[in-house]
């Protein structure tokens, strides 16, 4: 038999001024199952809470209804109150008679009647409430960071500094990412290598950080607190533990015609290589697509010159399985392919380059040793045209991206400024649609490019670039002057839009993390939870969540680390008990629920059931992992046999509320 207590709060005059609280208490006191109904000026006050606690004990209440402010305000408070009195905290319902009654209605009679109905609905629901116990699941105190660019490195360092173990999985042979390829960084013009490489070394030397380079995530199982991740360690054909990084092999290898990926193919290197001088780990690897030994079995020069015997042509990929409490996606970005932008002659003339290629052409460790020479004839370009928004803000042209890539305005200002500073005899033109410089010291930086360095900014776009007689004839528009300038340039630099690294899509599937239409990871809340994925235990760092510059990436990396540390510092995770629960007797294993679950919380198990004819049969039935389920209820409606229900918001409970309101 139910013994329900109803407590009507006055909230000073907030409720009592419009709602006749005494009448509400009196009327609700007559509802079946209600043994106590009373009103009090402030239920949330210490004495109000004491009153509820005492009533639960004295009246041996089985359920509590509080008619007060919104549950979003004090549900947590009253749950604790109820629990202190020894009653399950989920045997409490709140009727929202302030925000949704006394504050929005003026007529006292109407408001009182509505408060009574809301109270009845809460009583009807609480009658059907079941005690719920929030489950706990253990937390593995190790984090996985996927991607070893500046985002991944920063996240790993911050987590490791808090005392937790971190693995960085990086698909390339070295960590460092795109930032390692940059020359200078805006708006302060520090050299990228000077600020990045010490961090790479810190990561390598940190006792809590384990770098798995040249590796990829292959499978992810488990859930928040205990993910099981399979990692493929790709064969380097070099024993990582033996190689000292002396580099002798990379000088002696006879295969010299390998396009150098670190320099974006602007020069060549050998088939065995260390990606760049400050690579971490500084270990050579063999590119099997070019190595003569691996392709034909004849050569072996590197093996002969290696003094420590690190070369191993027989090395195979290996799989490792590890457990993690939290996973951080830091897969970064890349510039889009400009193959389809034929009007800019990219790919038709070597002197049309992307901005990232220009970084290499200006970098002291790049193919030209830091002297700006154009690729075709290695001469100094005297006239340089920059084109902004190549592939950015392209709504439906089938070639570009609809979003602003965010970083191009600033790096183009940087490039223009650096070129004008180093080579004052060079004329620099920038075609732009808008100059977007919201950031600390950003607009000042851009204005310096214009005012101090004399960069010509032209409002308009470029329509066609025609390579002719060693020049690039750039035909653009100058919308402010109403002209169609034609500039004979020596070098054209295209600010290519950036897109998420292509590995992100398959990773998102493995992580059951959601993505937007552009393949950027979706955050749990665009404003309030920007570094968490909607999937519990998966966090986002850097440009994989959206275009970002370095300061923003580092800030987000730190924020993601803080969230990971918060998770890993707990021994157990308390789960939301209002989760989906299948009635296995009714489930027919049709998989409808699994298909709508955004979290991958539903799996299937074959279970034995006793049939009416006393035989047993093996049936496939749904299983909900309560640690993963977030309680949205999508599956409950999708289930064709009505086997799936949601604890705390069950079909019966909601129907009872409906009935009470419509009565």
């Amino acid at each position, binding site marked *: 038999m139910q013994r329900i207590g109803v407590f009507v709060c006055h909230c000073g005059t907030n409720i009592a001024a419009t709602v006749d609280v005494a009448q509400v208490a009196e009327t609700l006191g007559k509802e079946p199952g209600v043994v106590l109904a009373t009103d009090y000026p402030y239920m949330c006050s210490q004495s109000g809470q004491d009153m509820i606690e005492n009533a639960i004990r004295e009246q041996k209440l089985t359920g509590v209804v509080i008619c007060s402010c919104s549950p979003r305000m004090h549900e947590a408070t009253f749950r604790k109150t109820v629990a202190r009195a020894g009653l399950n905290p989920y045997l409490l319902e709140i009727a929202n008679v302030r925000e949704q009654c006394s504050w929005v209605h003026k007529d006292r009679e109407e408001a009182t009647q509505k408060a009574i109905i809301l109270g009845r609905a809460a009583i009807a629901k609480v009658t059907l409430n079941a005690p719920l116990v929030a489950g706990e699941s253990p937390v593995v105190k190790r984090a996985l960071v996927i991607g070893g660019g500046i985002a991944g490195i920063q996240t790993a360092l911050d987590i490791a500094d808090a005392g937790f173990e971190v693995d960085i999985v990086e698909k390339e042979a070295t960590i460092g990412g795109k930032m390692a390829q940059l020359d200078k960084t805006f708006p302060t013009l520090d050299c990228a290598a000077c600020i990045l490489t010490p961090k790479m070394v810190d990561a390598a030397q940190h006792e809590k950080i384990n770098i798995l380079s040249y590796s990829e995530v292959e499978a992810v199982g488990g859930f928040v607190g205990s993910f099981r991740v399979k990692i493929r360690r790709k064969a380097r054909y070099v024993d990582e533990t033996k190689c000292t990084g002396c580099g002798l092999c990379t000088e002696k290898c006879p295969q010299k015609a390998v396009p150098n990926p670190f320099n974006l193919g602007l020069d060549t290197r050998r088939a065995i290589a260390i990606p760049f001088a400050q690579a971490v780990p500084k270990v050579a690897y063999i590119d099997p697509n070019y190595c003569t030994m691996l392709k034909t079995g004849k050569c072996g020069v590197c093996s002969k010159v290696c003094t420590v015997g690190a070369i191993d042509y027989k090395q195979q990929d290996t799989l490792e399985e590890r457990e993690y409490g939290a996973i951080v996606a830091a897969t970064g970005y890349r510039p889009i392919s400009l193959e389809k932008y034929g009007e800019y002659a990219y790919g038709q003339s070597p002197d049309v380059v992307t901005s990232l290629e220009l970084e290499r052409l200006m970098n002291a460790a790049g193919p030209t040793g830091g002297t700006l020479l154009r690729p075709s004839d290695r001469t100094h370009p005297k006239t340089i045209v920059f084109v902004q928004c190549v592939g950015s803000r392209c709504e439906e042209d089938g070639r570009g991206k609809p979003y602003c890539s965010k970083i191009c305005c600033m790096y183009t200002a940087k490039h223009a400024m650096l070129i004008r500073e180093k080579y004052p005899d060079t004329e620099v033109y920038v075609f732009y649609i808008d100059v977007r410089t919201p950031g600390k010291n950003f607009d000042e930086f851009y204005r310096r490019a214009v005012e101090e360095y004399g960069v010509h900014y032209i409002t308009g776009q470029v329509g066609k670039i025609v390579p002719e007689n060693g020049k690039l004839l750039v035909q653009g528009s100058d919308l402010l002057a109403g002209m169609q300038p034609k500039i004979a340039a020596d070098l054209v630099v295209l600010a290519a839009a950036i897109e998420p690294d292509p590995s992100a899509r398959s990773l998102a599937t493995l992580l059951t993390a959601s993505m937007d239409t552009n393949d950027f990871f979706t955050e749990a809340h665009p404003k309030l939870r920007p570094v968490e994925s909607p999937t519990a235990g998966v966090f986002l760092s850097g440009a994989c969540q959206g275009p970002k510059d370095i300061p923003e990436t580092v800030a987000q990396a730190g924020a993601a680390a803080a969230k990971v540390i918060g998770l890993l510092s707990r021994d157990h995770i308390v789960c939301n008990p209002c989760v989906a629960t299948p009635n296995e007797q009714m489930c027919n294993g049709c998989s409808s629920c699994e298909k*709508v679950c955004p979290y991958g919380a539903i799996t299937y198990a074959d279970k034995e059931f006793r049939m009416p004819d006393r035989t047993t049969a093996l049936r496939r039935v749904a299983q909900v992992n309560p640690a993963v389920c977030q309680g949205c209820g999508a599956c409950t409606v999708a289930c064709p046999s009505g086997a799936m229900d949601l604890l705390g918001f069950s079909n019966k409970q909601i129907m009872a509320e409906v009935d009470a309101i419509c009565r």
Partner: protein
Amino acid sequence: MQVNGAWQPTIVAFCCNWCSYAGADLTGTNRLAYPANVKIIRIPCSCRLNPLFILRAFGRGADGVILCGCHPGDCHYTTGNYYARRRMTLLFSMLDFLGIERERTRVEWVSAAEGAKFAAVMNDFVRQITVLGENKRLEDFRCK
């Protein structure tokens, strides 16, 4: 529902916990009025709304039922409101088929910041249901 001898529409509003319920709270915080006919039921997400709940409400004498959820793309659970939208579209066709005015049900996206919109929507919906009059068609007389 009869109040002092005059008919007053009974309206059930299902509001998702994260956006619309919070939006309704904001309506109160801003003291924006809407008719007391509207009674809100809190659900975790608009996708928790089984269309049967709506039929149940009509069967029990509700004159209008409204579902409020997060704006498309803003769902706390990422995709819940898309499911809700599809299910409601199907329900609309079914109500058409049953001969229930489809104006008796409505889906609105109300964010946690849209207190004013919540009030405007409810005012409009109550006005609309008042014009439509009492819902007799689906009333389940066994429940009386």
